[in-house]
């Protein structure tokens, strides 16, 4: 697998140098791997810190800025960052009002953020945490590490970020983040595997004429393999998998998310099918976002995330945001 890189070992550092050059509005600490809003800490406001393995860009570094994250910690490709990064990020952005960690539910992310929280609290920083676990492809039971955090991360970071920007206290920002996660469900499909720089070849074999249903965002195979389906059939499968697990009475935010290598042309076409199925199922749509937001390197495929919103959550969703990856209202 060819890649536009120098050597696998410097992929993350190279990307951070490139981000620094493109985004003067960010402070990028390449050595310590922390991306911070230039104006942080913002006096009196709760700060949001997230992070995770690299390879999901624009998540999380592309979501740092007013109205969303205060800082992000990129780990190695598909590898949770280490506690040192999170601690450094928290110290850089805390104004005294506390820090909310937004953590995708993977063993590595959970363990490392937990360690960082302990260390931060030792240093007198108040820490709260929202765990994102929205992927209905994984059964949340004793027999799994629980549901994965995928597309809903964007909703949590945006909406909790807006609450923090308004000056809401840590407990309320945390509660809002949790509510967004509880209101969200995702389902993803892969048409191809992805290749990590370290491995240099696809993480699994997916023959022509087949697709993986229920994949995560780390190149893991999904729950099931099937003969290739049309965009309309995939939309039905994904939406129904989500609606099996939630019955939205309020309108939903829709994220039709590309895994990285699926053209925007196809994503928009897939969105048309997702909307068709939602209408058929009687689900009202408040807002729709289509694009590559929570990616899986060069994987072809897409995921659907629905987030049920009341008027207050919708107001926070619509609030201004200014980041590299998501921007409106300012």
């Amino acid at each position: 697998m060819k890649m536009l890189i120098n050597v696998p070992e410097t992929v993350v550092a190279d990307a951070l140098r490139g981000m620094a050059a493109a985004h003067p509005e960010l402070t990028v600490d390449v050595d310590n791997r922390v991306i911070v809003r230039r104006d942080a800490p913002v006096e009196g406001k709760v700060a949001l810190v997230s992070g995770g393995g690299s390879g999901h860009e624009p998540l999380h570094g592309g979501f740092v800025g007013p109205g969303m994250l205060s800082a992000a910690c990129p780990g190695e490709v598909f590898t949770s960052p280490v506690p040192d990064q999170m601690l450094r990020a928290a110290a850089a952005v805390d104004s005294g009002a506390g820090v909310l960690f937004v953590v995708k539910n993977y063993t590595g992310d959970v363990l490392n953020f937990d360690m960082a929280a302990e260390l931060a609290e030792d240093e007198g920083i108040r820490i709260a945490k929202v765990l994102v676990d929205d992927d209905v492809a994984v059964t949340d039971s004793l027999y799994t590490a629980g549901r994965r955090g995928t597309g809903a991360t964007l909703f949590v970071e945006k909406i909790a970020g807006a609450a923090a920007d308004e000056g809401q206290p840590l407990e309320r920002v945390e509660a809002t983040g949790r509510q967004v996660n509880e209101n969200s469900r995702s389902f993803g499909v892969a048409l191809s595997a992805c290749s990590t720089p370290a491995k240099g070849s696809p993480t699994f074999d997916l023959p022509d004429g087949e697709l993986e249903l229920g994949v995560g965002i780390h190149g893991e195979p999904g729950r099931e393999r099937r003969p290739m389906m049309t965009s309309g059939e995939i939309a039905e499968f994904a939406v129904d998998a989500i609606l099996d697990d939630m019955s939205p009475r309020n309108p939903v935010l829709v994220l039709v998310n590309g895994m990285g290598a699926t053209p925007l042309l196809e994503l928009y076409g897939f969105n048309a099918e997702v909307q068709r199925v939602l209408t058929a199922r009687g689900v009202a749509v408040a807002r729709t976002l289509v694009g590559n937001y929570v990616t899986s390197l060069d994987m072809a495929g897409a995921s659907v995330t629905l987030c049920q919103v009341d008027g207050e959550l919708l107001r926070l969703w619509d609030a201004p945001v200014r980041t590299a990856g998501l921007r409106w209202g300012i």
Partner: protein
Amino acid sequence: MLDADFFRRWMTATAASVEREADRLTALDSPIGDADHGSNLRRGFAAVTATLEKEAPDTPGGVLTLAGRQLISTVGGASGPLYGTLLRRTGKALGDASEVSEADFAAAFRTGIEAVTTLGGAAPGDKTMVDALLPAVDALGDGFAAARTAAEEGAVATTPLQARKGRASYLGERSIGHQDPGATSSALLVAALAEANGD
């Protein structure tokens, strides 16, 4: 008796075998994980040997505590905090003695493994590193070579299991039939113990 030098040799031998086997570990992490276990541990143990050379702690406990802290600071992922905790807690349990007996070490290593199960919540049979570590510590009474054999058997025995912890658990029944990468690297860690002992 085992001195600081023995534990330094343990770490160096682990780093060397992880370096040698990195591609295999990553390959095992590919069908049921995210294809990074080899590069994770290579990065971590390279940092461990570098820091041990620089700081040169002079007690067994000092060596393992420092090694564990270093893994936590450089690996990330699931294996970073877990292996880091394993070594750090083993080191702490060894206290500041300048030499420890094999039995002292076995007891401390069990404390470290218990810390891993507390942190990660994995039980035996969940298809994790625990499935190589626990048989190894149980066999330590019969010497390092016996522990090595037990760890290797434990790693191989993860193949037919369905994963209940870590990323592989997302696959449900599709995780069956693959050897767990973490159990495999644990077998390398235990084998390095025998190597450090000259077995």
